[in-house]
């Protein structure tokens, strides 16, 4: 894929499609998504609700609701020589939590209210390591110290309800990292938190990523968070990757009109303009995200796109690979046109 890269990816996702059975029929929530994750990098997946970012991450760990969600045949998720898309439950169980761990948006619902937090860290260790009991307790305290929880010796005996939201998210991170996974998937880890606590958690995650050299997939709708912590970014819209590239390219030189419109629609703090002359209207994107049950013909963004042309309503653009490891799915991308080399499988 990227022969110039000094390292080989820890995770390779190829043509991932994930479908859900609904009363109205089968919807494809993630449609032909391919990407690589390199060691030690933070990859951001951004997009609005329903774009498929969470389903992508859950598909990697095969955490889809049984009987409702399924990965389409032909999808591949390569991790350590195993195709997770086709792997059996036994292999998956050895990988989940040990080599690929996940933290969720709402730490209260992800923690078990009837067990102490120490017990919950030890449970993960018991499952994935051969450490004796006393060692596990010692390691649980050490993990709490690592995530900067004050008085870890005391806190290890407390229950989730005794902790604040930020502290609970720290506990989730401690559980996720106790087996030193290769990949941490963080699904909106700070969305439920206040901004000063969000800043603490982001700083903690960043420090731990450096210390443990973990690769992180950060799923968020908050573009400010992406700009501050990610190395590369995938932008998703209606189940498709519409653009990918380095965080600098995405923010400074977006090529897809959706990415550009999303960035422009953010209210920006600290504009040095007097109130009277400040453009108070934001450049909003008209319309709404299309329903996955009723996707428009052609480009999925065309009816909201400021630069659409006739072709966009007829033919869906392919994801084209440009220089600097960028990709864009648009017939008329903004800026210099990418070399028309289509992404190889």
């Amino acid at each position, binding site marked *: 894929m990227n022969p110039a890269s000094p390292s080989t990816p820890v995770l390779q996702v190829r043509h991932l499609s994930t479908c859900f059975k609904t009363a109205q029929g089968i919807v494809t929530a993630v449609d032909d998504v391919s990407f690589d994750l390199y060691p030690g990098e933070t990859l951001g997946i951004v997009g609005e609700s329903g774009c498929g970012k969470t389903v992508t991450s859950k598909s990697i760990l095969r955490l889809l609701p049984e009987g409702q969600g399924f990965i389409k045949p032909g999808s591949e998720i390569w991790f350590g020589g195993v195709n997770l898309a086709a792997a059996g439950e036994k292999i998956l169980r050895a990988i989940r939590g040990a080599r690929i761990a996940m933290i969720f948006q709402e730490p209260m619902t992800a923690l078990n209210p009837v067990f102490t937090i120490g017990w919950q860290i030890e449970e993960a260790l018991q499952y994935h390591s051969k450490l004796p009991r006393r060692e596990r307790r010692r390691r649980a305290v050490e993990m709490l110290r690592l995530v900067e929880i004050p008085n870890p010796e005391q806190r290890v005996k407390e229950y989730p309800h005794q902790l604040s939201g930020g502290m609970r998210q720290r506990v989730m991170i401690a559980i996720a990292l106790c087996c030193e996974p290769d990949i941490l998937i963080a699904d909106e880890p700070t969305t439920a938190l206040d901004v000063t606590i969000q800043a603490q958690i982001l700083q903690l995650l960043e420090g731990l990523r450096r210390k443990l050299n973990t690769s992180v997939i950060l799923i968020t*709708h908050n*573009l400010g*968070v992406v700009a501050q912590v990610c190395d590369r970014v995938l932008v998703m819209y209606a189940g498709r990757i519409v653009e990918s590239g380095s965080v600098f390219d995405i923010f400074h030189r977006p090529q897809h009109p959706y990415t550009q419109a999303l960035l422009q629609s953010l*209210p920006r703090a600290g504009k040095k303009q007097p109130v009277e002359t400040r453009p108070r209207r934001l450049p909003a*994107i008209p319309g709404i995200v299309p329903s996955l049950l009723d996707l428009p013909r052609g480009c999925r963004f065309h009816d909201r796109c400021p630069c659409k042309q006739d072709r966009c309503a007829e033919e869906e653009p392919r994801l084209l690979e440009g220089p600097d490891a960028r990709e864009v799915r648009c017939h008329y991308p903004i800026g210099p046109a990418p070399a028309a080399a289509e992404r190889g499988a």
Partner: protein
Amino acid sequence: MPLVEVKRLVKHFPLRGGVFNRELGKVHALNGVSFRIERGEILGVVGESGCGKSTLGKAAIRLLEPTSGSIFYDGQEITRLAHARLMPFRRRMQIIFQDPYSSLNPRLTVRAMLRETIRFHGAAGRREVEKAIDELIGKVGLRPDAREKFPHEFSGGQRQRIGIARALAVRPEFIVADEPVSSLDVSIQAQILNLLMDLQEEYGLTMLFISHDLKIIEHFCDRMLVMYLGYAVEELPCENAGERALHPYTRALLGANPIDDPDDRRPLAVLQGDVPSPFDLPKGCPFAGRCPLVEERCRREMPPLEEKTGGQKVACWAVE
């Protein structure tokens, strides 16, 4: 004369529990907050969860009874007005909620709901009501066929438009907008903010705009009130708020807001620790436990909100 003025508003919620449901203590949601809003002005209220900003919004229009303090509307005190005498004021002040879905009656079509609101506040004959409904639906950017639909048939952004239409149905002067765009996606957020801005200009609305998002407050409002644990700690114009901010908490909030520019990366966490519980309020300044400028005096005595320069008020001992 300001349209809305609130003086030393206090709201304590009793915390009950135990076998006899005794009062165990009080949650100090508001601890003496004052502000004034001039006609046509938008005052932003910003702060983290539990700072009392929603309580302040609801108490200001008497959807919650304040424990003490006073509320003046258009020069008249309405703090203790009885229901019947309050009704004429109710028509002049409306609220828009964060979650439009739970604040809309699922069994009423948009038309029925708007009709009910318009009639309840004593507007005219049938034909006029129907005309007003059509006009409202157009004003908030919904298609005419929205009239006969139920709330569940709309997306989040469209529901918020319905919530706005309902608030506007009685032609209010003053609107409390309580986190009106927090549950919406970024692209929809911008649409709704633009709509509110247009309506504010068209009808000359006065607004109290509550949000946890400083960027939105800075963009949308004229002045902002920064709250922490039921206290107003700073009041400042939104223009260049980043440079004006004096209170260490306001500065921390501004610093913790992730900037959407990868070239401008900075250490985010400027504050340690959590917000203390409003149940057992610390003595002195509530921010003292996390404050980088804390002095000995801060732990003993709450600083008053004092005017510093050009309309900016700060409650901090460390700020000269």
